[in-house]
């Protein structure tokens, strides 16, 4: 990274790029450039063409028309290898790592240092891996550990180290903070700034406005495969960007509360699961949205899994409508009127290879029968109901879920669970990876459900969402509930402090 910045033109430039898949246009005549040492935010709703654009830059797709210029020369990327050679690296959203290989290997895979014999030089590889991670301030990361056992944040750091190992001049980050907790987001932003200072350009794809305003130098907005505009960050504000993305003004992000809290729906008394969560006690009322905040790994999702019976409680008591219940399996939880919209839509929420109707029926198999047999009519009717009720944009109940956008997929998960007529709804990261428009729809829906008397427990890593949606906020840390706030008392400062302060004091103890 010792080179000085002699280049004046863009590090990478896309000119008039178009791309279609099976006749469907994904990008139409889009031009985009990245200057040396800048953070360039790329914005757009899901399906706007961001992924296609970055995949073209990464060499995973080839444009139908248009050209890619690197340092002013036209290049053709036939494969990711060509893009790497041109100094472009990608930190993928789904973190494409090899779980059974070590940290060091993951960083150097495909371009490991060789000895004079042409074999891999493990000594050099491990040394340089250590150096790179030190540059990223990840001194605690063990380079000989298998990646399988690492947290999401650490995996992401490995991906970034991998980009550095390629001497990348341009690093594309695809929703890098989507899966990160607040503290890790801060660390990531520090890393991004550090990279920029060393002359690396960053293409930063994110749905989170605060990050964009904190980091980006310029911003480009795409909509429906078209370029809407590229601007200096100083020249725009949040509502303007949202309007550009959505194509209309979205005035209120978080809908106001309607109705009042009712009776207690769910109560936990000193619930523990092994040593993962300990002594969890709280109550959840009908008609309220209870926010559960905390860092990733603080035990939020684990609490939800215990309530839902995936990891049944090893101690303590759970009461529903005042009566103690034994929740030993998801099936039992469902039969008690609990629904869980999981954190990871793709692997936990949906069977993407199946149709909407199949997915909606999945949690309701026994109800959608006539005698011993499935009732195809009822299944279709249920799916149609969900499509109408949640405004799922699909050709019909027979459409394969994989073909839907993230927001619509999430609505299918919701449809599946609301078809069980639950009275308690747990939503884990309900809007992760969903674009602004769909996000607002889901928020509206949550409010409507609460107004109808649903008791909602919401887990979110996005502090604005927690604060905007919750009627009350609980904060978890190291497997315990460490603070509780009313809506009025739940300020970003107070909640943020509870999430991090106690973590520091606990680890110091």
């Amino acid at each position, binding site marked *: 990274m010792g080179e000085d910045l002699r280049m004046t033109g863009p590090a990478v430039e896309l000119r008039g790029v178009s791309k279609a898949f099976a006749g469907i246009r994904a990008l139409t005549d889009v031009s985009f450039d990245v200057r040396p040492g800048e953070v360039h935010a790329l914005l757009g709703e899901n399906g706007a063409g961001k992924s296609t654009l970055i995949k073209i830059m990464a060499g995973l797709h080839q444009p139908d028309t248009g050209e890619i210029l690197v340092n002013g020369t036209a290049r053709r990327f036939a494969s990711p290898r060509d893009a790497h050679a041109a100094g472009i690296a990608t930190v993928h959203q789904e973190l494409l790592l090899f779980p059974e290989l070590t940290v060091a290997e993951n960083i150097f895979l495909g371009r490991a240092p060789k000895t004079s014999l042409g074999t891999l030089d493990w000594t050099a590889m491990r040394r340089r891996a250590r150096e790179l991670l030190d540059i990223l301030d990840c001194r605690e990361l063990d380079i000989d550990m298998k990646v399988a056992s690492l947290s999401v944040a650490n995996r992401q750091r490995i991906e970034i180290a991998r980009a550095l190992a390629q001497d990348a001049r341009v690093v594309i980050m695809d929703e890098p903070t989507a899966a990160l907790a607040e503290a890790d987001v801060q660390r990531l932003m520090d890393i991004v700034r550090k990279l920029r200072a060393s002359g690396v350009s960053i293409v930063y794809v994110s749905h989170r406005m605060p990050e964009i305003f904190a980091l980006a130098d310029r911003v480009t907005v795409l909509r429906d495969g078209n370029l809407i505009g590229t601007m200096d960050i100083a020249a725009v504000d949040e509502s303007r960007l949202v309007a550009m993305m959505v194509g209309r003004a979205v005035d209120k992000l978080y809908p106001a509360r309607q109705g009042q809290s009712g009776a207690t729906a769910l109560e936990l008394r000193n619930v523990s699961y092994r040593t993962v969560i300990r002594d969890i006690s709280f109550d959840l009322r009908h008609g309220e949205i209870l926010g559960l905040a905390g860092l990733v790994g603080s035990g939020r999702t684990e609490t939800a899994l215990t309530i839902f019976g995936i990891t049944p409680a090893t101690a303590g008591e759970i009461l529903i409508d005042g009566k103690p219940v034994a929740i030993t399996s*998801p099936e039992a939880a469902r039969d008690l009127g609990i629904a869980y919209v*999981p954190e990871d839509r793709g692997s936990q929420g949906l069977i993407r290879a199946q149709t909407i109707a199949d997915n909606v029926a999945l949690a309701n198999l026994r109800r959608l029968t006539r005698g011993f047999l499935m009732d195809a009519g009822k299944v279709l009717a249920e799916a149609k109901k969900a499509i109408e009720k949640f405004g799922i944009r699909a050709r019909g109940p027979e459409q394969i879920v994989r073909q839907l956008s993230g927001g619509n997929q999430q609505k299918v998960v919701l449809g599946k669970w609301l078809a069980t007529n639950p009275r308690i709804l747990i939503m884990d990261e309900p809007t992760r990876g969903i674009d602004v428009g769909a996000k607002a729809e889901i928020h509206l829906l949550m409010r409507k459900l609460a107004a109808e008397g649903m008791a909602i427990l919401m887990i979110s890593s996005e502090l604005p969402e927690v604060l905007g949606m919750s009627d009350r906020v609980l904060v978890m840390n190291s497997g315990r509930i460490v603070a509780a706030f009313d809506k009025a008392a739940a300020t970003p400062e107070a909640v943020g402090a509870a999430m991090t302060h106690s973590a520091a004091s606990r680890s110091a103890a």
Partner: protein
Amino acid sequence: MTARLLFRHETILAILTVIALFVLSMLSDKFFTVDNLLNQGRLMSEVGLVALAMTFVIVTGGIDLSVGSILGLTAILFGIFWQSLGLPIPLAMAAAIASGTFAGFVNGLIITRFSVPPLIATLATLALYRGLAEGISQARSVRGYPEWFFFFGQGEVLGVPFQLWILGICTVIAAVILAYTPFGRATYAIGANETAARFSGIRVDAVKLWIYTAAGFMSALAAVIFVSRVTTTRSDMGTGLELDVITGVVLGGTSIFGGKGTILGTALGLILIQALKNGLALSGVKGDGTIVVIGVVLIAAILIGAIFDRNRGG
């Protein structure tokens, strides 16, 4: 479930089967006769019964290599229960089938409780159950069953072999269960995405346990029919059965990765294989040539399916 896509593979297979039947009946006038076809039905019954259960197993994304060994073990236990323990035949039959079912249950237990991949778990029990059969029998055959017992394997009801009725009934039941019941939906869901199935309140472990137990039961049922058909009990019975069964199921379009497959496909796959074995033999092709043809047909059928898939997917 992409009904159309499934239909595709079965359509290809049905066309292949019809072509095969047509060509084979051209090659030999002995092939397309009622007698021969019913007889072939008798010969394919054991493989067919096990293949029904195997379809469920593979749809969940699993595999069961131990079915042949369970068949051998059940056959031996049946013989031992009858001859050495002196149980009356119906009781010995029930006890042996219960033992075979239990062997399947053990497979399921190892797979679900200890999360051992099915391929490995059943690779181990393949050796274990066959070893038990050999050890228990000390390689001795049990013979001399009473004449009436041979009805199950050699008798006819309304002119149709007894076991073909059993196979037919089991096929219909299996087809209905897989396609039209909550259990069937759960089976597909587990194969397509086990975690999502679990998170949807499906009792994944229980479903899998049932399926492997059913595979044990079907193998045991096949064992009794087999013993009745060949009138003797040997510890090497059913050796290599798993490959025949898996070939039939896979040829029938069931994805080895799980989540896809139908009983109709399996039935067509089995019919195609049996028709080739019999028809080629009748038209003068030797056994080793037939094996080659079956191998080629298996790869070709799946290849055609893959090409169709790809063209659709774009």
